[in-house]
């Protein structure tokens, strides 16, 4: 909250900046820690902080980042919101997109809207189960991910899936252009801007926060809370589908459960980014920072040639420390 008297006495622009700063202040911490990690990485192995490597880090983070948006929306919507099916939806949509486009650019325009619709539909099933049948989100989305991964297994019968990303999609997912900046970063930037605008400036975004912060007050203000929550899961599904398309572009070929490794990191990145698991608080910019931070940490541990065991231990410890510093529950 900005003090009334202060806003009056100060010029409009500065007050506005101050307000923006107050709003996004929480988002700065993960970025700062990520920068510290990058500098630390330079000491471990020279070239870690080189512009090229940082761009590679950001490109890797962007794939996680899109899924984190899907995750953030349902967490913000409250009601113990969480979506453990983002990875499964991304996987099945990547498979579908690959099968439909078969490496042809011309079919990209059919494949993308199709899988986004499928993702929306799958997310809507989550939303209906959660909002209408009151199934706990954790279990509902977990069961869904089992069902969805099961569908992929049924389709492929355990064999390799035939299909691949088109040239254009591969260029978007793993190519680079202007000054060697990966194309995926431009895509991510657009997604970030749109997400921040929709979540922070539009009526739908504010309604989402309202329902997450206090369902009862939202209802009293004439908001259909259950519908909002169900739609949150549907949009989460649609964004997960989009993430699946990018994953396909990044890898070139689809494979089973390609989205699964991103599920729990997506929750962690959101929380590290200041999105409260209680709902109704935090913003996507923080979650973007969380994605960059987690990706950098993983890369740093790989660079240190730590075995899988040591990597897991350090990852867990750092996560606990970060949470202890600024991820505490504040509602009690």
């Amino acid at each position: 909250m900005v003090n009334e008297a202060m806003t009056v006495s100060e010029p409009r622009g500065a007050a506005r900046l101050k307000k923006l700063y107050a709003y996004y202040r929480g988002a700065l911490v993960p970025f700062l820690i990520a920068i510290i990690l990058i500098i630390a990485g330079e000491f471990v192995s020279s070239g870690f902080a080189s512009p090229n490597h940082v761009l590679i880090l950001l490109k890797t983070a962007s794939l996680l980042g899109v899924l984190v948006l899907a995750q953030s929306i349902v967490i913000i919507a409250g009601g113990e919101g969480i979506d453990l099916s983002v990875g499964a939806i991304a996987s099945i949509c990547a498979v579908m997109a690959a099968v439909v486009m078969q490496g042809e650019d011309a079919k990209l325009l059919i494949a993308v809207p199709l899988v986004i619709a499928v993702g929306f539909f799958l997310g809507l099933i989550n939303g209906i189960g959660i909002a209408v049948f009151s199934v706990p989100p954790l279990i509902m989305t977990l069961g869904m991910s089992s069902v969805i991964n099961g569908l992929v297994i049924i389709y492929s019968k355990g064999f390799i899936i035939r299909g691949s990303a088109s040239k254009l999609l591969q260029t978007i997912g793993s190519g680079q252009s202007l000054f060697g900046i990966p194309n995926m970063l431009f895509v991510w930037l657009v997604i970030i801007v749109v997400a921040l605008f929709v979540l922070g400036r539009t009526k739908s975004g504010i309604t989402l926060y309202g329902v997450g912060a206090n369902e009862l007050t939202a209802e009293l203000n004439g908001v259909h809370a259950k519908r909002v929550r169900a739609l949150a899961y549907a949009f989460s599904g649609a964004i997960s589908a989009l993430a699946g398309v990018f994953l396909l572009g990044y890898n070139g070929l689809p494979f089973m459960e390609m989205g699964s490794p991103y599920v729990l990191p997506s929750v962690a990145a959101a929380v590290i980014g200041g999105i409260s698991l209680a709902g109704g608080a935090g913003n996507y910019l923080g979650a973007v920072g969380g994605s960059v931070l987690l990706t950098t940490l993983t890369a740093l541990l790989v660079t240190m040639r730590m075995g899988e065991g040591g990597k897991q231990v350090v990852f867990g410890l750092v996560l606990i420390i970060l949470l202890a510093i600024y991820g505490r529950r504040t509602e009690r």
Partner: protein
Amino acid sequence: MDIFNQLKKISRKPEFPSVIILITVIALNAALQKNFFAINVINVNLLTFTPLILISIGQAVIILGGGLDLSVGTQVSLINVIMAVLMKDAGDNQAAVIPGFLAAMIAALGMGFVNGFTAGYLNLPPMIATFATSAIWYGLALLILPSPGGAIPTWLVKGFSWKYSLISMPLIIIVAAYLVWIFVRRRPLGRYIYAVGSNETAAYANGVNTRRVKLYSYMLGSFFVMLGGFAITFQAASGDARLGLSYTLTSIAAVVVGGIALKGGSGNVIGAVFGAIILNMVINLIYFANIPSEFQEFTKGAIIILALALAVVYRRRESKSLALS
């Protein structure tokens, strides 16, 4: 009239829907598997069900106290790996397995302590804190045993599958574990676990040391998880850091199917036992109904969702009729 009232009372218990589902699954299993009620088959089934039953009891205790443990799977892994490495050369020497058991117990209580500390004293959201600790346990397990190996003395493995008619070692362990919970349930700690789980602020206001209760609930949960870890280890007879991974989410599903609210404070641990048996039997069903193996994952998920939606709808109707009466 009295019997009718009794029945009504029973039907209002939170684990009642799970009992109905359990009876249905047993009936389906019996129809598909010819000698389902043969003593041998019952014993074999129980043997394979034991790990999930014990781990679900642990998860249930933690969830009842208002927590959640996403690290139970990797706790099982770490316990398994510690035992397999320390008991590798024990052979027939019975005293040589003691260090293995002791180390496993210390590890289990230590893991429960760390989880409980992050939830109770650091006040971190349990879902994300135990996700972080699960990475630590998994990492430690990998450090101890990077690739599957180690061994458990044969006499221990045989001892675990000991049976006399319907009385078998797994059954004894499950009953003992449940009695431990009943013992705790009847003491102040048991009441406090329910109190903290249903309303932490109110419990605190009534002078309950909520932090300590949380700590104890995680440690008690880890104790049951450890028993589950023993059960898996004696069946696998070797060590593998990936052995426990699938149990985390299945145990949560078992708890919820058993009528225990994820919010905490409501439900009975016996429901988790029913839930674990149901989930195991569903997997059996898929196998015996000759459903192609690629349908397993799909069917498992679909059945979990359906069972939950039914249980929730049932509970909601019940609470409405309670409110009216």
